Every structure is written in C-alpha cells, then in structure tokens.
C-alpha cells in the first residue's frame, strides 16, 4: 500500500511559517518521473495593448463611431436573412407609419443613474438613496442613435432592463405620430463565427483558471493558496493525483491577485513601517507565482484591485513587481481582457469588470446570462466608455469580438457556474464564471478538447461530493482544505499552532489520514 508523506519548505514573509521535513516512509516517488504535458500557446493580446497609442485630444465619440460602423456592417449582412423585404433607413430618414429597419447604438436613459449634475440642481430631487449595486428602474427608456439623429423607442419587445447604453442593434418597426419609434422586432449581431476545434489528440490536458487570490486581504488564507500551488506543481497526493497534475499545461490568474489595505492609500505620506506593508502582498504573491512558474506556464492578468491602470483594456502588470517569477520565461504578464490559444483552442476572458458593470446597469438571472449576452452582442464591454473606464481609441474597438472563443471565462465573481452555449452556426462555447479564490477556495480546471469539462479543485465546502468516478480523486483536496481551516488554536505571546493534514491514499483512493505534522510557530499579523 503506497503511502507517502510530502514535505516542503515554505517561507512566507508575512506568516513566517516553516514547515519542516518529515521522513519519507514509503514508496519512492521517483519510479518513472512524471513528465508534464506540453502545449502550444499563442497570445493574441496585441489588440489590447496601448503602448503605441498617443493621446491627441480625441473624444469618446470616435470609439462609438467605430463600434457602430463595425457592428452595423455586420448587421447589414445579416438583414437579408432576417427580413429582406423591409427597407433600411437612417433615423433622420424615418417616415411616419412606414415600416422599416433602423440600425444604431442604444442609449438607456436611467432615472437612478448617478450624474454629477444632480449635485448642482436647484431642487432637491426626490430620488431615494440608491444602493451602488443596481441602478435599474422600471421607468428606464431606450433611445436609438446613429450618425443622423436619435429616436425614442417604444414597445414591449425591447426590454430596457436587458439592454445597456452602447449596444448596437437593428430594430424593425415604424414611426408613430408622436415621433417615437415603435419596435416590433430586434436583431442583435449574434455569436461570431468560430474556428473549428482541433481533433482530440488523445491526450488530456488541463488549463487551470483561478482569480481573486486577494493576497494581503483579511479573507485570504495563504495555506489555501499554498495547497493550490502544491496541487498544481505536483507536490501533493499520490501517484494518481500527480498524474492528473502533470496534465495541467497552463495556469491563468484572472485578476485581483493582491489587495492592499485601503487605509494605506489615503493619499498621505506613508511612514516607513507602512511602506513595507504596501509591498508585502506583492512579495508574497511573487513567491507563490515563482513556485508555479518554475514548472508550468502561468499568465497573470490585472484586475480591479491590482497595481495596473484603471481603464480597460488594462495593461500587463509590470515585470519588476515579480522579480522572482519574471526570471522564468514561463511567466507571462498579460492584458485584461486576455485572448489566447492553447493547442488551437481559443480562450477569451476578463477579470470581471465588464460583467460587474453590466450587473449594475441591467438585470439578468445570473452571471452566465450576462456572459451570453456579451457574446450575442459580439462586444465584450458594451458599457465602455459610458460607465466603464476605457481608453479613447480612434482606429479600433478592441472589445469587438471577432472570432468566437471556445472557452469564455470571467473572473472575480461571487459563485462558480458553468454552461455550454450553442450558437446557430454550430458554435460551442464553454462559459465559466470563476469565483474569488480567497472567499471560496475554488479554482477551475478546464480540459480544452472537443468536449470541455470542468473540474472543481479545492472547494471549501466539505459537503461537496462529486458524482462521477473520475472526480473521486478530487475528494482528497476537499478534506485537506476543510481540515486546515477548522483547526487553529491560539497560544501565548501571539504564537499559534497549525494542524497540517496530509493526504494518504491506498490504491483505490478511499482512505484519508489525518496527521499532526508539526506544531508551527508563526507570528500573527499585527
């Protein structure tokens, strides 16, 4: 019965833990050292980079014009299949009572949307204090705008709670005598064409997607992150576990990797002892990333909390922030949004700002529905630049989705969710909503092949029992994480003790062993 205990030494700057080595008692692990699978990686982030851009005083009207032109050209090509008998006209060319199709950008007039001008209005407006979560109101109205003019939209077909400012759609209807446009039907751009998936080569390869590490925040548990790193690098588990870890070919960290304490960022000069607190989360993150980068390609995307620029597309995090990991050529700092190919399977994802903004200004059942809508509108962030910060491009709109991804992921969400979306032309997209790792302990492993499947690794919830036999191996991770978070005792002088659980399994993988490895001394954060 193979039984192994693994050892490693970890040096956390904040925690000061040192796990000591315990003797290896059982079978050697070196029988036929496992090789990690390789994969072909190609990044297509050039469209999101703004190093070559120069601000010449342009306004956001340019990016709206480009968006309208790109999507309108697309919609014009779809119109013959939709309603070929109707004429297409501009907003200014509308005639009363004449049924026609108009194409333009939607603008949603929202009653509760905060405007800077309401501070200066003479009368105290009666709008109640709104929660910052959602500004949708039943009285919101939609307006369609193109180069020639605007027209108010009426009718029940177009629901204002679904659409946001910045969508480009085609509308079938007629002008009423009040001067409004009564909508009978809507046409969106639809899912973009998708490149065919390569034939299943027979090898299972996994891509790990994780987001919301929030290193440095009070909710993040460094041991949880260390377990994830150990699982990915193959230091955890028995041979079967290691074999599944050797199939991981790519790790993507989708935003919000560090969280600096907000109290430090109030604009005042920092005392010298506070200055080190500012850089500690990044140093801690670098240690984790170095361990991963030493063995496996890793992409890191910036998020809302990360030290990168605010406006989308966020530029790659500077390599000098990661002195340890950037020494490896497997470490890649990427833009947000991030578009890349692994073995010719296209991945597209963001750190969540686009969906979070949609959640504020429209309504849907869940995150996956928002994601589906962005694909159907063929635009990653329709609310940019209206309510989402965006660079004022003049020659392109980088958020326009040219080719349908095979895997579409959004980071930093509340819950884990996934679904397959099927398009009209045979497109198949795996939608993944990645929850924040610091809160849920969930990282997602995707198998990019003809049938993308998702495995959940390291969930907090002990009651998670995967049904299929193939997932049984992952039960160990559940118990391991769950155990660590429960046992913790405090002792004198700010020292504490940690129980470490080591997994052991027999050939079947059923038994779980609890071990008190070592009582550790570590300093609580001050």
């Amino acid at each position, binding site marked *: 019965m193979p039984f192994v205990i693994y050892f490693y030494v970890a040096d956390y700057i904040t925690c000061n833990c040192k796990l000591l080595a315990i003797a290896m008692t059982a079978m050697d692990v070196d029988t036929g050292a496992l090789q990690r699978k390789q994969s072909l990686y190609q990044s297509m982030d050039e469209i999101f980079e703004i190093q070559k851009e120069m601000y*010449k*005083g*342009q*306004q956001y*009207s*340019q990016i709206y*014009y*480009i968006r309208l*032109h790109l999507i309108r*050209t697309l919609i014009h090509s779809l119109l013959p299949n939709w309603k070929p008998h109707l004429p297409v006209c501009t907003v200014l060319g509308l005639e009363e009572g004449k049924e026609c199709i108009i194409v333009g950008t939607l603008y949603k007039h929202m009653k509760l949307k905060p405007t800077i001008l309401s501070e200066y209005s003479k009368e105290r407006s009666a709008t109640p204090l709104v929660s910052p979560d959602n500004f949708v109101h039943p009285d919101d109205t939609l307006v369609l705008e193109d*180069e*020639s003019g605007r027209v108010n939209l009426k009718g029940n077909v177009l629901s204002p709670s679904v659409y946001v400012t910045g969508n480009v759609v085609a509308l079938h209807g007629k002008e009423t005598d009040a001067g409004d446009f009564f909508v009978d039907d809507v046409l969106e751009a639809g899912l973009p064409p998708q490149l065919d998936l390569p034939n299943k080569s027979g090898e299972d390869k996994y891509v790990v997607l994780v987001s919301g590490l929030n290193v440095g925040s009070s909710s993040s548990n460094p041991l949880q992150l260390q377990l994830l790193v150990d699982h990915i690098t193959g230091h955890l588990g028995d041979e079967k576990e290691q074999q599944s870890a050797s199939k991981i070919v790519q790790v993507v960290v989708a935003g919000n990797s560090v969280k600096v304490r907000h109290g430090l960022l109030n604009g005042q000069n920092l005392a010298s002892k506070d200055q080190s607190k500012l850089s500690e989360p990044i140093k801690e993150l670098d240690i984790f990333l170095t361990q991963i980068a030493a063995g496996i390609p890793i992409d890191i995307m910036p998020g809302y909390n990360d030290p990168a620029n605010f406006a989308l597309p966020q530029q790659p995090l500077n390599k000098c922030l990661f002195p340890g990991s950037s020494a490896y050529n497997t470490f890649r700092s990427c833009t947000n949004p991030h578009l890349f190919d692994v073995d010719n399977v296209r991945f597209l994802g963001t750190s969540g700002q686009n969906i979070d903004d949609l959640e504020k200004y429209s309504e849907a059942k869940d995150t996956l529905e928002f994601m589906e809508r962005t694909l159907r509108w063929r635009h990653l962030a329709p609310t940019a630049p209206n309510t989402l910060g965006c660079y004022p491009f*003049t*020659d392109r709109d980088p958020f326009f989705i040219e080719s349908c991804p095979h895997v579409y992921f959004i980071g930093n969400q509340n819950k884990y969710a996934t679904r397959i979306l099927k398009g009209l032309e045979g497109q198949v997209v795996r939608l993944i909503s990645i929850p924040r790792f610091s809160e849920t302990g969930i990282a997602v492993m995707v198998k990019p092949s003809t049938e993308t499947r998702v495995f959940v690794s390291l969930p907090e919830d002990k009651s998670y029992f995967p049904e299929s036999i193939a997932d049984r191996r992952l039960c160990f991770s559940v118990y391991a994480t769950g155990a660590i978070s429960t046992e913790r005792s405090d002792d004198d002088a700010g020292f504490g003790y940690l129980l470490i659980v080591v997994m052991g399994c027999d050939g079947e993988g059923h038994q779980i062993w609890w071990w008190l490895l070592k009582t550790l001394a570590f300093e609580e954060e001050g």
Partner: protein
Amino acid sequence: MASSADMKGFYKQKKKYAGISKPSSSKPKSKSKSAASFGSNVAQPPALVVHGSLDLQENHDANEEVLRQFDMNMVYGPCVGMKRIDRWNRASSLGLSPPDDVYRLLTSTASEVCSQSLWDGRV
C-alpha cells in the same frame, strides 16, 4: 488638446482692438448722449473683442472648403480631436472609400492646408 508649445498661442492675451472706444472729449453725460446720436465720428463702436481676431473671412480658400466638407461628412465619423489625415486613413481602412482629392490635398507638401480639423482649438 493643444500641445504645450501651443499654449501661449492658445491663451493669447493681446487685444486686437482697444475695446469700446471712448469719445475723446470729456463732456457731461447729458450732452454726450446727444453727441452720440449725431455728429460723432464713430458710427458704431466696434464689438468688444478680447480673444483673437474677428476673422469672418479667414484663410479660407477652395482647398480648405473641400477639407471642411470632408470634416463635416458624418459618414466618416466625428472629426473632433483627430488629424484630418488620420481620419482619412481610418475611413480608408474601414472600407468607406473617402475621396482621393482630399488625400492629395492633405499629403501634398505644395498646398498650405491645415492638418487639423475645423474644430481644432475652438471646441
């Protein structure tokens, strides 16, 4: 926005005209009223102009007119904040076939046309 080299020109403080011209002789108020109604040299005092000149007919030749029509054409998008040649290139890459004579005017070194759009420095 105007580059730093242009800031002085942007905010030039010189007055082209001296403002309201006062009557040279200082007469009492009641009399000056009648003086203004007839017989005064200045038929109508010029408008108070602080910034720049009253150029109703500026450097406005036929070439500039063609370029202004190009600026105003909404098919090629908004013109504010972009150089005319950049806007032409963008229109061309989007497949809109902008007129060639505009391109010739903008690229030829012979003609003295403004590279910025008509709203440059005014909006």
